């Protein structure tokens, strides 16, 4: 049995080569039935929440829409509201950006989602900022990259003020007295800040959770600080034991400054998995999945992320290009979050690796791209999850299947029961809200959060 509570969630993947769409079992990424299936599977496995990211602009490379991975996804808010109708307890978490939106509208959408799901809404705050994405929105690329966290912080602060503008129990609905509302101040707000200058009357009464659960996913120093100050959960990308522990220690160490306890912020890395009858069998399956995820054409696209030039003439089963990367101009990649931070160093590392192991382009890309987080028998995977949580490398994991919507079935059927038998994971939902599942207290009042920021 684990010594600390384990939290598990399911991420319905959007873009990225995670999804092996060529697998015969791969389903639609737009039909509602796919979302229903994954959400219900996660719910029967008693997962804390179901998670959906957000799309604002289709990715492009070299001026053309990227066509090798799954493309096409629904609107996040709308799908989550619909999923509220076909689930009962599982949390419904979605990414919504703080750049191409305004607090009044986003706050009313989340308050509404929280009402319509009876307290299961969560918001992953992201800070998309670039002009490429901005071409789909009224103000274009108006936000400087360096200001994105400032805007996100103030956006969230304003949203909290809007949610707090209604008291609990303000909807009196006293027919005898003829009083619907407790007082006429309900909803009144004024927010004067650098990013937002707004006032009026918020129109959605206080929702079951008060505030949706707040997620943050940025990995930079500013991102971690933002999470420590304002978030309930971090959707982290450090899934290995060592990297996870480092990240865990760093972020949880920042909480005290804000008057928060370690348990107030849950760290949940994204995780992938491949199961098998034996460890060897699982490893074989995992290798096959990675071969499917990194096809020849995909390998060329990945290489282009670093080389920053047209490499379509190269054979993915052949050696690395003899030409040098092009560091001179703009990135040819648009709309993708994680492009190589230091392309020169990466290119050099890759050349060395390819030479050492005699790797083709495709083999190299398979080698250097992420391995699955958990590979093994159901028992091995269950124990590895327990170990990671006990070792304080994570508070749990957000699992992303490589086949959607059926890719979570095996995990739900074989891994979760082991965790449950060991007393490491819930067999029933105890509470009704997402805050309950995550072991979070009542939300921090906006005023309090703002006061602490003044330090």
């Amino acid at each position, binding site marked *: 049995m684990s010594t600390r509570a384990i939290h598990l969630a399911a991420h319905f993947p959007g873009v990225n080569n995670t999804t092996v769409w060529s697998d015969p079992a791969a389903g639609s990424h737009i039909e509602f039935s796919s979302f229903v299936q994954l959400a219900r599977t996660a719910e029967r496995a008693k997962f804390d929440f179901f998670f959906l990211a957000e799309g604002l602009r289709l990715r492009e490379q070299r001026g053309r829409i990227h066509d090798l991975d799954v493309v*096409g996804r629904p609107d996040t808010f709308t799908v989550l*509201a619909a999923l509220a109708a076909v689930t009962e307890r599982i949390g419904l978490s979605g990414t919504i950006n703080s750049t191409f939106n305004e607090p009044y509208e986003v706050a009313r959408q989340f308050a509404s989602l929280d009402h319509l799901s009876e307290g299961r809404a969560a918001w992953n705050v992201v800070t998309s900022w670039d002009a490429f994405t901005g071409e789909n929105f009224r103000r274009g690329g108006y936000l400087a990259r360096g200001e994105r966290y400032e805007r996100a912080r103030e956006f969230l602060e304003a949203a909290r003020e809007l949610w707090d503008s209604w008291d609990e129990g303000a909807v009196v609905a006293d027919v005898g007295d003829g009083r619907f509302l407790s007082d006429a101040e309900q909803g009144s707000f004024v927010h004067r800040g650098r990013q937002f200058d707004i006032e009026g009357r918020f129109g959605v009464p206080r929702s079951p959770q008060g505030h949706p659960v707040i997620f943050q996913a940025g990995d930079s120093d500013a991102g971690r600080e933002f999470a420590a100050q304002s978030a309930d959960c971090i959707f982290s990308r450090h899934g290995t034991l060592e990297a996870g522990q480092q990240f865990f220690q760093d972020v949880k160490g920042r909480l005290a400054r804000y008057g928060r306890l370690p348990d107030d912020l849950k760290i949940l890395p994204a995780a992938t998995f491949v199961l098998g009858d034996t460890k060897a069998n699982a490893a074989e399956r995992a290798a096959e999945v990675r071969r499917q995820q990194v096809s020849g054409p995909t390998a060329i696209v990945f290489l282009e992320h670093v080389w920053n030039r047209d490499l379509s003439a190269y054979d993915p089963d052949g050696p690395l290009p003899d030409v040098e990367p092009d560091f001179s101009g703009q990135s040819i990649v648009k709309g993708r979050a994680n492009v190589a931070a230091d392309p020169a160093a990466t290119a050099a590392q890759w050349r060395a690796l390819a030479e050492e192991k005699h790797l083709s382009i495709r083999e190299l890309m398979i080698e250097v791209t992420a391995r699955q987080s958990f590979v093994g028998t159901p028992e091995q995977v269950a124990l590895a999850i327990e170990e990671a949580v006990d070792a304080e490398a994570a508070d749990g994991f957000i699992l992303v299947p490589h086949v959607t919507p059926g890719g979570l079935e095996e995990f739900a059927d074989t891994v979760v029961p082991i965790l449950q038998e060991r007393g490491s994971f819930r067999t029933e939902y105890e509470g009704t809200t997402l805050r309950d599942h995550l072991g979070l207290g009542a939300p921090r009042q906006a005023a309090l959060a703002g006061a602490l920021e003044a330090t």
Partner: protein
Amino acid sequence: MDDPSNLHVAVALDGAGWHPAAWRDGRARPGELFAPRYWADLAAEAERALLDFITFEDSMAIQSEHRGILDDRLDHVRGRLDAVLVAARVAPLTAAIGLVPVATTTHTEPFHLSKAVATLDFVSSGRAGFQARISPTALEARQFGRRGIGGGGAARDEEVGGLFDEAADYVEVTRRLWDSWEDDAEIRDVATGRFLDRDKLHYIDFEGPWFSVKGPSITPRPPQGQPPVAMLAHVPADFHLAARSADVVFITPKSAEDARAIVAEVRTHEVAIGRAGPRLRVYADMVVFVDEDGEAARSRKEALDELDSRPLRSDAHLFAGSVAELADLLEEWGTSGIDGFRLRPGTLPGDLEAISRQLVPVLQQRGRFRDHYEEHTLRGRLGLRRPENRYAHA
């Protein structure tokens, strides 16, 4: 398609009903107006009645005695849930009724609404639409904080004209984004490793004074191709916009003769702007208090007027009477050239239940209403074919 001699009836849902004191009606559920089960029950009742579609009222300002000015009333319903999300919440629980949330075109992003309605269309298997609404008040503008509108409570005339043009542009953007994916863009071609055929995706390249939108959408073409766009129209500027941009228009005649005249006006606007494609579907709004016994319905309305200290006022015709009388009225107005009626129940769920359990059976007995849904998309219900994609090559 439906028997052409059938009447078409839709319903407009808002809070506890369209009378300000409706929340105090004996059958009201005023403590549940923000609960999902309330909306699920209303949607189920409307679908049981075989109604064409539901509109879900919404605004970017809290309800108020006077538009654009906050008030301090405690005795009226205050607060609403986002209509697109309410529609999405009831979509999986319904099978055939159309779902038409009100959405504001001022201040919001057309890119977001376009994918939201497309997604509503996916989760409802082709039953989505939206009712476009302009926000002309400084109050709403100050809540968004991005632009000034008007010095006092409402926009000045020139500004209002701009808001209509913006709405037309907004609808154009949402429509182009719905077409920005051709139907067969997703190819899952294993041989070439391509999930989609990028030649079947199109930039919409819209440029205008209020926004420029590149596209394509992030969401594939909705099941209906083009979810219907509705608008409520009172004055010429409204009719003009509807003729330019909408599929359905809600009008507020006070009599059959009035309805006839307004329909003529609508057609005049269609000709004036050179509207191509199908004509506007015209639905006449009416607030209804209805009961088996007409006297009971009238007393019920009067009791609410008492509680509110004044008689109900509405932009639409007010009906309070028996089921038989209402059926007669609908049959009479039905010959005025309109395509259907959008009933606004005076109280909810009371008057909606009267519509579903009493009015509809009477209309069915008279052979004037469907006894099952023939079509399962909203476009089909409105007699609109699925349109060609404007970007697809012949």
